[in-house]
């Protein structure tokens, strides 16, 4: 009887300890920043969570990007929420897009920009000595900055072709006012990751890619 009592007490203590550790260990957080949207698509879709306390798990189907799609551009906006109690940086890596045919969809054919950094839920740490910096060349809306190159192909100031390994796209000072142990509906920042594809005479086929957004301690800038 006494042994059982000790066992239950120990297990309870261990579980509570584990909870406390897992809840306070994370000083940096990345999550859904809201419902993603898609425009200009034919047969495409985007799925993600509108709840900013959910993980960032987004599936984008650009749909048809041959000339069968008569829209000038397919545009996807993915809001991404960030929380931190220290300076941070956001990096992005891409994998899986490796068409050997140069006329097929390439990483450089998918425009990628960072836009519209704003407070999450209207609340977050407002620093006066440092700003949130979108790293060059990603500070643009690829839907409005796309141009046609000398070879006739649409080009972007920044695209997935600018991602080499894990590429830092954003950095800045502390994001959150409170040192909450779990995700809040507010108290952080949101940015829009903008992706575009301009329908073209790409070589026929199906292409896919996976992007990983990660947040880590950034340069020690003052708040």
């Amino acid at each position: 009887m006494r042994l059982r009592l000790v066992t239950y007490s120990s297990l309870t203590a261990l579980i509570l300890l584990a909870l406390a550790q897992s809840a306070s260990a994370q000083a940096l957080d990345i999550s859904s920043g809201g419902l993603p949207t898609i425009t200009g698509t034919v047969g495409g879709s985007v799925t993600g969570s509108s709840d900013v306390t959910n993980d960032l798990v987004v599936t984008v189907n650009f749909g048809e990007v041959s000339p069968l799609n008569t829209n000038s551009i397919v545009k996807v906006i993915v809001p991404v929420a960030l929380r931190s109690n220290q300076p941070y940086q956001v990096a992005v890596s891409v994998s899986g897009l490796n068409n050997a045919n140069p006329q097929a969809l390439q990483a450089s054919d998918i425009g990628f920009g960072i836009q519209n950094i704003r407070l999450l839920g209207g609340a977050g740490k407002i620093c006066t000595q440092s700003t949130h910096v979108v790293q060059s060349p990603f500070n643009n809306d690829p839907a409005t900055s796309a141009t046609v190159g000398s070879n006739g192909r649409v080009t972007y100031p920044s695209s997935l072709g600018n991602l080499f390994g894990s590429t830092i796209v954003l950095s800045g000072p502390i994001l959150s006012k409170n040192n909450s142990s779990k995700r809040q509906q507010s108290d952080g920042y949101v940015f829009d990751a903008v992706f575009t594809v301009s329908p073209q005479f790409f070589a026929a086929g199906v292409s896919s890619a996976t992007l990983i957004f990660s947040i880590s301690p950034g340069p020690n800038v003052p708040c």
Partner: protein
Amino acid sequence: MPLHTNKLILLTALLLFPALTCVAQSTSGTVSMSATVSKFVEINSGGSVTLTGNSGGGVTTDGVNNSPLAVSINLGELGPSNTNSFVTAQVPLKLRSNAAYVLSMSATVTSSGTSASRIGAADVGFGLGTISRTGVGVASGSDTNATSGDPTLAANGSVNGTTGRYEFTAVRSNLSAFSSATTALSGPIIMNAVPRSNANGLSVPAFFAVKPQFFENGTTTISVTFTVTAP
């Protein structure tokens, strides 16, 4: 501490665990992407029709570059009162594709005449001219012209020594070879990865020709349909 109290604490902790972990923080997230490029081919007008050697007649509905192909031509008089050697209509075509293509054609010729001297499909010469792949965004490639080219060329027809009737004798040089959909041209991918707004493409003229002769009098209607596919 009573045993049932311990159980209660443990149970509460176990229930609380998933509730807390569902809002636990994470340092990474994923965006998965996919896109589809289907085979695409199109045929449009390559520009204005050129009608020569006609007596009367004219281009009723002209071609407009990069617009859907829908031209209408009145070849005019095809009896001996037209003293030109041929009445020829040159119809520019423009093809574009992101895959290998096949251009086929089918034609029907109907005449109000009833005798063997009425205008028939074999009396309407046909051929595709010089194929041009030029301009930004157009891929290089070697195309196969299944016709014999301009049907008015001396090598493509002559007067039948027995009947005296002029005949288009070369391979696929008249519309009788196209009574059903028949390949006229084929080749590899035409366009590089450029937007549809790029106006370039593969250009080729389609020649139609009739030699004015002592045909049975009457009216004749020639209907031609071009179809491009990506097999």
